[in-house]
């Protein structure tokens, strides 16, 4: 979903900064508060951040003949909510923009909005709604993270379409063209990301289920049931 340096004209890159920065600042406040109130979540926060590091470093080939990145943000969003995830996501984006010339500084706001803000928000909302409806935990994690990964790239397509409407068909035609590249390439990657996230969440349930209850990710009864199923 990286939009390269210089590939968003004014006022678009500024507008996406205006959307991302408040969320990131709020996320920093929330993260500080969480870490100072509950030291025991720090290892889990590190795992969620590291998961974004690993997944977003992988350039995976897709059936369309292009390669793209998974995002890895869904897990953090389910565990810590979208605001804290925005902080973790933007750290990775800054690393890639500065050391890898992947993405860019002026386009950081737009890339953060798609990968670190909107994608995680979708994962979080889906997870909460589906867990209220009683969906199986692993299926819920799988769907929430796969959808969030895919939505990230739909947002990127929209960002480019808004900045570059086509002469004949306007924003809609442009959106269809960009989504044709990003959204189709992303489908297999999103499925893989969902599966990997579900698996790592199983291990989190095994080792840190008490913290999951503290963070309101799962209820005590849900944890007991999941653990019984593991025996």
């Amino acid at each position, binding site marked *: *979903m*990286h*939009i*390269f*340096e*210089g*590939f968003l*004209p004014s006022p678009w890159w500024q507008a996406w900064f205006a959307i991302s920065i408040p969320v990131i600042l709020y996320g920093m406040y929330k993260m500080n508060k969480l870490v100072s109130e509950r030291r025991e979540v720090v*290892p*889990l926060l*590190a*795992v969620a*951040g*590291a*998961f*974004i*590091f*690993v997944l*977003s*470093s*992988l*350039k995976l*080939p*897709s*059936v*369309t*003949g*292009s*390669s*793209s990145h998974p995002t890895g943000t869904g897990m953090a969003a389910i565990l810590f909510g979208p605001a804290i995830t925005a902080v973790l996501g933007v750290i990775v984006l800054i690393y890639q923009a*500065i*050391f*890898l*010339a992947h993405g860019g*500084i*002026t386009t950081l706001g737009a890339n953060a909005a798609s990968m670190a803000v909107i994608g995680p928000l979708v994962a979080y909302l889906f997870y909460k709604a589906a867990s209220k409806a009683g969906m199986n935990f*692993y299926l819920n994690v799988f769907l929430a993270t796969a959808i969030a990964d895919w939505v990230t*790239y739909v947002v*990127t397509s929209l960002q*480019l379409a808004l900045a*570059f*409407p*086509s*002469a004949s068909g306007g924003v809609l035609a*442009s959106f269809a*063209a*960009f989504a044709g*590249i*990003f959204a189709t390439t*992303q489908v*297999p990657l999103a*499925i*893989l990301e969902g*599966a990997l996230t*579900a*698996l790592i969440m*199983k291990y*989190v349930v*095994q*080792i840190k289920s008490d913290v999951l209850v503290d963070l309101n990710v799962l209820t005590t009864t849900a944890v007991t049931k999941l653990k019984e199923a593991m025996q």
Partner: protein
Amino acid sequence: MKLEYIVAVIVLLFAGQFFYGVLANPDSEFGGADGAAGDLVSEISPGYEPAEPWFQKYLFEPPGGETESLLFALQAAFGAIVIGYTIGYYRGKGESNK
């Protein structure tokens, strides 16, 4: 163990879609989708020149593909160490408390 089997099947299917993609796009080098989107920008707005911000020349840029892949590998390795260490630590702690 059931979830592990399902994930293994999905990983195999992922490999399958890749090999299918190789057959279906014999000339493709599987370049980045972000690059393809960049090409599309110049197709839609032929006159568009990506703006180069003033600080661009002060920024580090990997000299080539080798250094770039090194930095990507470091990123992945760092993440994997943190995940493996933390999960291993708590697993071991859980075992010794039994």
